[in-house]
């Protein structure tokens, strides 16, 4: 690993615990950094910026939907907001957040000095701001951003202006970033574990990321293919998705969802990993069923490749195909159930305390499971045909994406912030953040189940009068949710600036390497000599 040390101009033999930063100063430090901790920090701040940007669009959407009629945004702009909200949140906020966790945590959890490919790591990150800029710039091109939904279904994409092309290139960049990051993560985990850190002794967070990285490598090229075909259909006279030229619009949906369903688990698995670190720590009890957690995660990953068409029950598949995808989809409930049972069993007869990370982990467990159950409801063909493309689906996937992934990310940030910065966050403010987030989240999305059942389609800028009350409640919840996240920003900045000094192990029950082997805050260079864990 001398290459890693060389890029830092570091002699590579210094004391494990006193590695400091010696490279360029100012902004160039962040542009040229190859240090996994710096890059992790970059990923996390980038993710937060995108979270606020995508969040602003969500606020615009909820503002327009506050009452019937067209008030603030014309339908075209409304569609652009829903599209970019989705793309930015999925690719700009949630995925980079967990890659940020991976960068910070994987090396210090397995006893490695850094990521395997340090320069590649830098590049993986620095592709992202360019991709995000393309997405934002598309709003200012003639015709605006594409108003096609984040799924970018053909042939509507053919009618869009050049904003669509910018979006396609952005997706290419985002995909490259993910693939490079994944190769790095896989290599690091398989080759750079400390002696004695066998695969089945790795913290579960590392396991979930190993599996996620394989999903990314397999799924992202498929998405790149789908958007490239869209590009050639738009400009180069091909007819992949145009029936008049021998193509098929439904082909796009098959390709997109072949990526899209593994994508759901690309987002969910690292969240499972974070929660699997947090719950045992605050239960002061080892994770129940460690081995079955690993098997369940793998089973979910494999199943995720054979269920894609459950997003497409209404395109008119043969009955045999509908039944196959229905059975395979319901099967996912089994390993997911195992995970939920394991988490609850970990808490059972523990010695529980409820600091903010634990609150978010419990919030995750409770609401993600609710989202899982609505997923089971939607997996059944006849019920899905009633609910497809209604607000029920919107409610369902926000329970999985927000109450699932975002809550887990919050849990992880509160959990590891003391280790990263050396300072504690304000526990009272943290608890406020949790409870406000929890209440407003349900206010936004629980009522959307009712809207969907009663028949409100998704992606409409205006709606019939019977849907007014629920939409008002949902919008008020959204504004509250948005404001609450400003409290989170304040709380984090306050902790970094003036938080109390954190001890090496602020959480009594935490037991992975970063807590037991490293001081707080974590030095710039760690584990240059691997710890012996045999």
């Amino acid at each position, binding site marked *: 690993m001398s290459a890693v040390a060389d890029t830092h101009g570091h002699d590579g033999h210094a004391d494990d615990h006193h590695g400091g930063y010696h490279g360029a100063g100012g902004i160039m430090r962040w542009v040229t950094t190859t240090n996994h901790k710096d890059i992790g920090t970059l990923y996390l701040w980038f993710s937060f910026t995108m979270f606020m940007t995508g969040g602003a669009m969500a606020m615009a959407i909820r503002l327009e939907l506050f009452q*019937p*009629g*067209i008030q603030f945004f014309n*339908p*075209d702009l409304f569609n652009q907001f829903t599209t970019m909200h989705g793309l930015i949140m999925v690719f700009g906020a949630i995925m980079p957040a967990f890659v940020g966790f991976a960068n910070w945590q994987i090396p210090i959890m397995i006893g490695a000095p850094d990521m395997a490919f340090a320069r590649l790591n830098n590049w993986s990150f620095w592709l992202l701001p360019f991709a995000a800029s393309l997405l934002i710039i598309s709003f200012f091109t003639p*015709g605006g951003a594409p108003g096609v939904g984040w799924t970018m*279904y053909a*042939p*509507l994409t053919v*009618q869009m*202006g050049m904003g669509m092309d910018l979006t396609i290139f952005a997706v290419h960049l985002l995909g490259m970033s993910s693939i490079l990051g994944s190769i790095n993560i896989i290599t690091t985990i398989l080759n750079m574990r400390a002696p004695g850190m066998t695969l089945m002794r790795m913290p579960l967070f590392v396991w979930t990321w190993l599996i996620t990285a394989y999903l990314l490598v397999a799924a992202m090229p498929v998405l790149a293919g789908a958007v490239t075909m869209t590009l050639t259909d*738009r400009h180069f*006279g091909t007819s992949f998705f*145009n*029936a008049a030229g021998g193509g*098929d*619009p439904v082909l796009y949906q098959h390709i997109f969802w072949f990526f899209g369903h593994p994508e759901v688990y690309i987002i969910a698995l690292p969240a499972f990993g974070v929660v699997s670190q947090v719950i045992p720590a605050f239960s*002061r*009890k080892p994770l129940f*069923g*460690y081995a079955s957690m690993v098997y369940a995660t793998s089973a979910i990953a494999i199943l995720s490749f054979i269920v894609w068409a459950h997003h497409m029950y*209404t395109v*008119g598949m043969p*009955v045999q195909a*509908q*039944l196959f995808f*229905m059975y395979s989809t*319901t*099967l996912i409930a*089994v390993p997911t*159930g195992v995970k939920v049972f394991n988490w*609850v069993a970990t*808490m059972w007869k*523990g*010695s*529980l305390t*409820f600091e903010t990370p634990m609150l978010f982990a419990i919030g995750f467990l409770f609401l993600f*499971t609710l989202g899982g159950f609505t997923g089971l*409801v939607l997996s*059944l063909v*006849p019920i899905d*045909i*009633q609910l*497809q*493309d209604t607000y029920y689906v919107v409610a369902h996937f926000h329970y999985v994406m927000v109450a699932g992934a975002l809550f887990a990310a919050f849990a992880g940030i509160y959990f590891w912030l003391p280790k990263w910065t050396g300072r504690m966050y304000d526990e009272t403010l943290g608890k406020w953040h949790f409870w406000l987030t929890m*209440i407003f989240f*349900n206010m936004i999305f*629980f009522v959307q189940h*009712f809207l969907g*059942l*009663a028949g409100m*389609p998704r992606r*409409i800028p*205006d*709606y*019939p*009068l019977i849907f007014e*009350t*629920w939409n008002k409640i949902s919008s008020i919840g959204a504004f509250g949710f948005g404001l609450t996240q400003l409290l989170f920003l304040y709380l984090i900045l306050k902790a970094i600036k003036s938080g109390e000094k954190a001890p090496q192990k602020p959480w009594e*029950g935490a037991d992975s390497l970063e807590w037991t082997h490293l001081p707080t805050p974590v030095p710039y260079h760690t584990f240059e000599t691997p710890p012996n864990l045999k």
Partner: protein
Amino acid sequence: MKASKSARSFANRAGVVLGAVIGLGFSGLALALEWNLQPAGSKLAADIHWLHEAVMILCTAIFVGVFGFMFWACYAHRKSKGHKAAQFHENTTVEILWTVIPAVILVGIAWPTTRVVIAQKDTSNPDLTIKVTGYQWKWGYDYVKGEGEGISFISTLSTPRDQIENRAPKGEHYLLEVDNELVVPIGKKVRILTTAADVVHSWWVPVFGAKQDAIPGFIRDLWFKPEKIGTFRSQCVELCGKEHGFMPIVVKVVTQDEYSKWVGAQMKLIAATADDPAKTYTLDDLRKRGEQVYAKNCVVCHQATGKGMPPAFPPLDGSKVVLGPKDGQITTVLNGVVKNGTPTAMVAFGKQLNDVELAAVITFTRNNWGNKTGEAIQPAEVKALRK
């Protein structure tokens, strides 16, 4: 249906419990509002509702059970109460049980569901077949087989723009009303063929449990057998561009007698009001007719002001095409605008409108706003340019 009714009231109660657990206090309010599936209007829809309720009850029971354990642990096994952590971390028997039992439950769910899936797909032996075509942004209905064969019309949102843009109070059926409703007889198996002219749309009538995407270039089908007299309303459910939220679906179910009367009246209407393409119309007649055609087909993109929404939807007021040679404009409206080999939002209206309507709307645009050509375009001129 008694069992299903009590199942529903149980599901309602279970739902209320769930709402209360979430701690929102919405439950009381919820009962007074639309919050469940619309009442079923066919046996298939009733079966779907039954399935939904059964699965909801099951899920609620499991949810309450699992989180009963979790909240009990949160209450009883907390450090502040002095609870010491046990250190167990696996138990093969328990782990096998909680893998196998959910799998068995899933098989239990799959069995009745499969029967409904197969029933839903069985579109054979219909009494009446209707083709539904999705356009940006309206629905076309063609009665292709059975009583009423030959009836064909376009169904467009009839809510005035004034209501949408908040200049007038909103009516009872705001966004759920159309100029021409789809009329079907009660108790007859109706097969719907769906397709689309431009992008993917989706045709849905919730009370019949009937939803099918309308895919350009392909024909898919679905069926329903209405068991309730009444007017049932819904909307397009697949994002299809700017006016996706403004293309409702309205189905009117009538008795067999009323249906036969309606078919008779439609047939007479077709004969009586058939536009006569051979006739020569006056400029005023064409403008009046053209204004109606414009309001139904053009206004959402090109706007009432004729200013459009550039650059996607160009202005007609002062447009070079509109003020240029009439053949050029007629060809554009007939065949649409194709850029780089792919159709744009300016579709080929030649397929949707007849010669008189086309002549009228073209005359209207050439003699409205700042456009003052003074020319009347006659249907014969349109006909001559049709390919």
